[in-house]
């Protein structure tokens, strides 16, 4: 018992530093899947413009379970996340509430928001193919499908098939061409791998630079991060060794995913949360948010980062992201069946 008391004593001693975020008049409490160093600049700007303070917890694994465990008393008003799968999981767990706002509807294309307003996309990123400038001839690779063809044997690198980005891409192929075709494609890519899937998208570009492989799957934003990395200038060389290829331009278009935001089911500061979402959908934050991580703003007419603009315009897969989220479990099981990571 004495120990229980000391636990409580510890609790009593700590609140000034460690207490929970309480609902003051002008606050919004944010659970963020995105890193503080990415979002802090525009959150600060939001506070400057509106006087609303933003409290943040940044975490990924277990965020949904935390919201669920906290239930109706959760302090969280809004969630900031990447990848449709997480927004979809939160929606299915009934942890988000529908929001309707003329501002959000005007700024965000229907393709990138939930039909009932449970979540809103804020930026997009394209899953592209990085190709070696030296070793890949023009026309050798033009689509995701080409990565599975025999002429690419031993030339392909990718991160784990279980990573959220890969699973979403596979889901988009299931949506476009069916499960059988997606499995055949995955087997084809596996047969062409230069090495066991490992590392992140950046590590694949490094592998191309090193000559381990000639092409890799990756997100566009990694190119920006490498090309402008003054801390690790060697990454500029990795970036310089590849070019970005937007796949499937002759067909359904390149697979894109979103980062997005949503208002929680039990938000205490709902008005402030909606205001934050609206702020994030307007020109100023759209540009800042997108530029910060070399992503594409969802709002039409917002200027792209010069580097991003330099990669050129492209046709993106127009499928509703909700459908991709639906194929997620099937895609995951395909990765196991093909033993893609093995």
């Amino acid at each position, binding site marked *: 018992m004495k120990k229980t008391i000391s*636990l409580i004593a510890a609790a009593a001693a700590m609140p000034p530093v460690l207490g929970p975020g309480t609902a003051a008049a002008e606050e919004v409490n944010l659970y963020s899947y995105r890193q503080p160093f990415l979002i802090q600049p525009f959150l600060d700007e939001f506070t400057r413009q509106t006087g609303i303070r933003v409290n943040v917890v940044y975490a990924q694994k277990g*965020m949904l379970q935390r919201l669920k465990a906290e239930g109706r008393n959760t302090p969280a008003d809004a969630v900031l996340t990447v990848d449709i799968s997480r927004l979809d999981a939160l929606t299915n767990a009934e942890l988000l509430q529908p929001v309707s706002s003329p501002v959000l509807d005007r700024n965000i294309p229907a393709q990138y928001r939930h039909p009932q307003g449970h979540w809103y996309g804020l930026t997009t990123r394209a899953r592209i193919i990085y190709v070696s400038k030296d070793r890949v001839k023009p026309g050798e690779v033009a689509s995701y499908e080409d990565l599975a063809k025999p002429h690419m044997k031993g030339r392909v690198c990718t991160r784990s098939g279980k990573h959220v980005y890969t699973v979403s891409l596979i889901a988009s192929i299931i949506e476009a061409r069916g499960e059988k075709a997606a499995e055949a494609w995955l087997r084809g890519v596996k047969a062409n791998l230069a090495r066991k899937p490992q590392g992140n998208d950046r590590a694949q570009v490094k592998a191309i630079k090193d000559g381990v492989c000639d092409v890799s799957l990756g997100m566009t934003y990694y190119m920006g991060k490498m090309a402008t990395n003054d801390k*690790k200038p060697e990454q500029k060389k990795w970036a310089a060794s590849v070019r970005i290829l937007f796949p499937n331009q002759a067909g359904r278009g390149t697979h894109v995913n979103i980062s997005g935001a949503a208002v929680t089911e039990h938000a205490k500061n709902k008005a402030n949360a909606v205001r934050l979402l609206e702020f994030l959908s307007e020109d100023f934050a759209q540009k800042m948010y997108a530029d910060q991580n070399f992503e594409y703003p969802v709002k039409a007419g917002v200027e792209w980062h010069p580097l991003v603009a330099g990669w050129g315009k492209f046709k993106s897969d127009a499928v509703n992201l909700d459908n991709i989220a639906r194929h997620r479990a099937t895609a995951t099981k395909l990765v196991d069946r093909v033993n893609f990571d093995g």
Partner: protein
Amino acid sequence: MTAAAALAQRPPRLGFAAAGVDGWTLGALIVAGCVAIPIGAVLVLAAGTGSDIWGHLIDTVLARYVGTTLGLMAGVGAGTLIIGVGTAWLVTNFGFPGRGLFEWSLLLPLAIPSYVIAFVFTDFLEFAGPVQGLLRELGGWTSPRDYWFPEIRSLGGAIAVMSLVLYPYVYLLSRAAFLEQSVGMMEVSRSLGRGPWRSFLTVAVPLARPSIAVGVSLVLMETLNDFGTVDFFAVQTLTLGIFDVWFNLNSVAGAAQIAGVILLFVMVLLTAERFSRRRQRYHGQGRALRRAVPRRLTGFAALLSTLACTLPLALGFLLPVGLLSADVAANLELVGGRAFLTSAGNSLLLAAVAALVAVLIGLQLAYGVRLSGNRALKSLTRVASLGYAIPGAVLAVGVMIPFGFLDNWIDAQSSRLFGISTGLILSGTGAALVFAYVVRFLALSQGAVESGLERVTPNIDGAARTLGCRPAGVLWRVHVPLLRGSMLTAAILVFVDTMKELPMTVIMRPFNFETLATQVHQFAASEQFAEASPAALAIVLAGILPVIILSRAMRNTVHIDTRAEART
């Protein structure tokens, strides 16, 4: 344990006489029960619906997950056993150049989080790293197809880096045991014609076995709960499977079921180990211990010993710290700012409170078990210590669920009775986080205290009781002085591990609350290791001082023991 059984038969004094439960046991039962709740919550999760994952797993990846997991456990177990016991034996019994330095510095790798050593070594050993770069220059090669080099992102790589940072657990506990062994035993063995090697293997190691077993089981539990390293090295273990099922198949129930399978693994292992030495007792003779004067080694043997101690220290500590420091030098602007200092302060505060609470609870439970031999308490304590084998993120869910339930219940009652909403009282506070650390690290504190207690002969308890001392008095006046070393060990293990702890801290922390580990996480999550290096190095530095204190204290423990025993 015959003596403990004898103690249990003493006339009970409190009101639970009928049930054979005294106040101590009852208190210990309650505390152990509280700590076991989150583990129970994980098992309840596992019973949830929507988790038809097993058919799929068995058809596809399960055999590989299990095989890789067993391989990793065997490799890390063997690696830490050889390094830990070997170096502990050398520094305790022999004199060779650098011995005084190695005595404490061999513990230093403990301060390095395995997720840090994983990325540091990958940077160093991969194709673009300095080692292969040099090899290419020497050999005149250009592409990876020109020569062979072991792949660091592999099972072997994971075994190597995990062994290098985890062996100190084995070193720490086996050295404590070796230090307490009477030199007489070894002399008898040697005089009966056994050489130094055979005496080591047939006398010293078997005598130290309870401590070595605790050390290795801590290592194996830590191996099983690790996600960062196996994920980074793309080694497909059951732990990786947990997260795959959780997030990709969206089945937290399935994830909890795999965690349950891992717990079963651990329990079988621990039970087997205990069963195999069920008839053995390991108490010291209760006489003043005469320490052996370390035998001075010369020539080749001395050189070899120095080398054997240098290797783990160099690879497990000096190299990673050196490489980290180089990265820090390039990111100096991230050091020393207010955010950084606040994070460091938060880490230290959390670690200190967690260490204190964990040691007190560990002591209470270990002594409760010794005192009563109560079966239920024994089992409950074992269950409560299993938190160490569950991946942090999963255990965090197990902690958050009961806290959320309790908070919402209190809120509902308060609203109903007084019309006042209390909101969440404990969820998302530092107190909940400290509780989570205790759930996670109880195995460390309870294990260290218990193995210390096991070496104190029950005759001492008996003598003190005969002289009229009550159980609390025996603990306070006899065991606590005797166990100072063990308790310090427990406190420092929990302190250092809390500093390093990542997944629970990240998910359970309050708003706007950063620690050094969360600082590492926000950068390491996107493999921006250079930016993560200052906080990572700070974690290591914060761990060094306690580790040195621990080691100094250990050397003095024997004298304390001797004095204490002389007094009794």
